[in-house]
């Protein structure tokens, strides 16, 4: 059995990692996955792997699967209001098929 769910991806500064995952859980998502990420955007190159002393210049990529588009939108709106202005952060969403039966 599979089901259509929404996958919300957030690429953000590592310093925000804990705050974002807290926000995601509080919004009602059942879980999330966090990866180290690197790359380049409008706020300069941000990378992992280099011996970056403070980790202030590292990124994380957080993936959240939500059963409804509404829940994903709630999370995105909250992130937008709190962090878009001052932090390196980007969010995007797409529809995926979850293969395991799970209540999202």
């Amino acid at each position, binding site marked *: 059995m599979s089901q259509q769910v929404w996958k919300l991806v957030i690429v953000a500064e590592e*310093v925000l990692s804990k705050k974002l995952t807290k926000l995601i859980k509080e919004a009602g998502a059942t879980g999330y996955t966090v990866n180290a990420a690197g790359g380049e955007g409008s706020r*300069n190159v941000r990378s992992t792997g*280099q*011996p*970056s*002393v403070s980790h*202030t210049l590292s990124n994380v990529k957080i993936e959240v699967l939500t059963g409804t588009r509404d829940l994903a939108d709630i999370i995105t709106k909250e992130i937008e209001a709190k*962090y878009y*202005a*001052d932090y390196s952060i980007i969010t995007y969403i797409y529809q995926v098929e979850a293969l395991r039966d799970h209540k999202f």
Partner: protein
Amino acid sequence: MSEFVSLFLSQFQSPTLGFLIGGIIVASLGSQLAIPDSIYRFISFFLLMKIGLTGGIAIRNSNFAEILLPAIAAVALGIVIVFLSRYTLGKLPGIKVPDAIATGGLFGAVSGSTLAAVLPQLDAAKVPYEAWTAALYPFMDIPALVTAIVVASLYLSKKTGGDIEKVEIWAIVKESLQSSAVTALLLGVGLGILTKPEPVYETFFNPLFRGFLSVLMIIMGMEAAQRMNELRKVAQWFAIYAFIAPIFHGFLAFGLGLVIHKLTGFSIGGAVVLAVIAASSSDISGPPTLRAGIPTANPSAYIGASTAIGTPVAIAICIPLFIGIAELMLGR
């Protein structure tokens, strides 16, 4: 005077500075040399643990009253440095005030690597100092970060005309205390005071200290060269501030240290440690705290200023400078 210059120059041949400069050079040349992050983290833990143990063992055998005045001086310096930056750097054309406040916070905060570098150099120069002076670290670090975040919040709320957003001071203090650098140092101090760690200290922490320090210096050098690119993207004033501020803060602290020397017999070597702590700028624990506490400030400005210029100046200029002055005062 020529003696002073030769003393100063001889410091450049010390392993600490040599490795730092080596790291800067290889990274500038685009070397692929990489030291894994986990090793970097372990080394900074190890060094601060050793410094903490040394301090703790010293505190066990010393009078608590001796520590009081230097600790007050450290707190005062941490706060004053932030205001100095706010009203000098922050007044310059093209500089955003929150950037200046955050930079001041980082320069008021303390670098574990710089602290680790000055102690063996004092030993090598045979300048005596109280080993507990290393425990002054959090007394300057935390007030500087708290002051920067409070001053920035007051400035921003005044500017936007909104209500003064309540700054959770305790949250900042807690975050600083929980940071890996301060935790390692305080754990060491606690173990030094409460237990008898001499066996592991003599066989493990003390013998390996200088070797690990030299590896850390290579990492700091490489980091400095890499952050240089970011510093280029912000106003040149940050680079100028980053060069002058460590030396100025060092003299301010050295002067205070000498006053305490006259009052209570605090050693001149101790005044050097206080000066170098003031000259240093945080690399590890400060930046994430400030990034979260002053989100509007540009991290390229304050991290670039601190890591690319502030730390090399503190290690390569301030340490030999103040040790040189101390040696002159001791009549060598």
